[in-house]
């Protein structure tokens, strides 16, 4: 049983809840393997995708998950601008609820927006990414993928590489994987890895070779071009020379290492095509697992009594 009607972040989940979501996702993955990839479990419910930031992959993943559970899906794509004066956030959300939404999947550029909605709405609010806070379903599908490939998570050496500071995916992964007992390493330039994360029990590496030794799982993060202009690193060329994943660097990890990426990838910058398309990559499976995990989350949230 999940304890809250909403999924706001990994920080708000207990280990039992995380495991329940992952175990249930396995049952949903079976559904996705069939010809008829649909179950009537949430028939008659309504899902609203409220995306204030553009996104194709996450939104379609949620849309598919919602449809496969037989809910009706509405997509609201709201243009983002802090300058545009228009309907307030709360008003938009109340309107959506008045339309009968049972699930609101929200992505927004400001951290804490899902929490604000959850407090003020009866619907189940699912965080699809808020500012630089969290992206919990991404972390859950990453954990599911790792568990499928490695049978367990506790005790694994897992490295997250890239712009940790601005990555909500990285944060959710850190919280989820440490909760499940993995040993997490963060690799990247000092300007992109906040020192105080050490207090969460992770190790920090600024040298890629040192950080990769003996790693079981590699999670590569997308480098955002905008960061280049603000003094976080001098050029993408320099970034890729020091922290890009190449076959030589990959050899330093364990032989059966798996390579993950939340997408979309900057081929040639943080990761070379040879690896992205190679045998160690599970990037496409992450996408499939994403639907199963999101179905699991929606199914379990629907059972929480208001």
């Amino acid at each position, binding site marked *: *049983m999940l304890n809250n009607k909403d999924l706001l972040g990994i920080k708000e989940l207990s280990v039992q809840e995380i495991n329940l979501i992952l175990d*249930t996702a*396995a*049952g*949903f993955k*079976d*559904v996705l393997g*069939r*010809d*008829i990839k*649909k*179950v*009537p*479990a*949430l028939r008659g419910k309504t899902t609203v995708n409220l995306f204030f930031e553009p996104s194709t992959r996450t939104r379609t993943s949620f849309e598919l998950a919602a449809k496969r559970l037989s809910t009706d899906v509405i997509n609201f794509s709201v243009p983002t601008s802090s300058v545009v004066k228009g309907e307030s956030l709360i008003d938009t959300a109340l309107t959506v609820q008045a339309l009968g939404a049972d699930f609101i999947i929200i992505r927004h550029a400001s951290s804490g927006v899902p929490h604000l909605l959850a407090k003020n709405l009866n619907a189940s609010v699912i965080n699809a990414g808020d500012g630089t806070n969290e992206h919990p379903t991404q972390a859950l599908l990453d954990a599911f993928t790792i568990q499928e490939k490695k049978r367990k998570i506790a005790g694994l050496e897992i490295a997250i590489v890239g712009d940790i500071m601005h990555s909500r995916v990285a944060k959710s992964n850190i919280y989820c994987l440490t909760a499940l007992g993995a040993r997490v390493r963060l690799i990247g330039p000092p300007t992109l890895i906040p020192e105080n994360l050490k207090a969460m029990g992770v190790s920090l590496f600024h040298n890629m070779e040192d950080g990769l030794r003996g790693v079981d799982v590699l999670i590569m993060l997308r480098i955002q071009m905008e960061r280049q202009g603000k003094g976080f690193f001098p050029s993408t060329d320099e970034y890729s020379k020091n922290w890009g994943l190449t076959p030589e660097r990959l050899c330093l990890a364990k032989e059966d290492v798996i390579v993950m990426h939340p997408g979309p990838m900057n081929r040639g910058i943080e990761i070379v095509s040879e690896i992205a398309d190679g045998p160690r990559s599970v990037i496409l499976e992450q996408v499939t697992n994403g639907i199963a995990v999101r179905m*699991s989350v929606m*199914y*379990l949230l*629907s*059972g929480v*009594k208001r």
Partner: protein
Amino acid sequence: MSKKLMNKKDLDRALTRMAHEIIEKNKGTSRLCLIGIQRGGVYLAQRLAAKIQEIEKKEIPVGSLDIALYRDDLNIRKQQPVVRRTEVPFAVNDLKIVLVDDVLFTGRSIRSAMDALMDIGRPASIQLAVLIDRGHRELPIKADYVGKNIPTSLRETVEVQMEEEGVEDGVTIRKSESVEGKGAE
């Protein structure tokens, strides 16, 4: 307060008889398969398949089916049903499926199971084998093969224990606290 209705030997004899009946009615094992309903039917299906193999010297496919997502009471239950694995590693089209469950009660689980099966494929026919039929049907569902008929009151619960779960084989009947308890899990 509980009473044991069947012990290990009773159970085994009932399963042996049911295996023979299944083979007889289907005139052999051609295009036959067994699918156990999670959770109670899974081990029973495996045991029946083993017995059928012993008798006919032919192996028949066995699968397991989770019906949680097809239940008709998802909105009203206090707690959500656990979603378990559905493992049907064979194509069901044109096969004769024998659904296996431990206790047949209202018939709603079987209705859910049939809907789930239809989303997996188009079987040639569906038959039903249950270890215990305890009456109180709410839908027009009938078992083709029954281990034992046990008339019960709504205040009672029937439980099947199996060795595979770590307890000795047996069937017990218990007076429950309230009239509900129709949800199997």
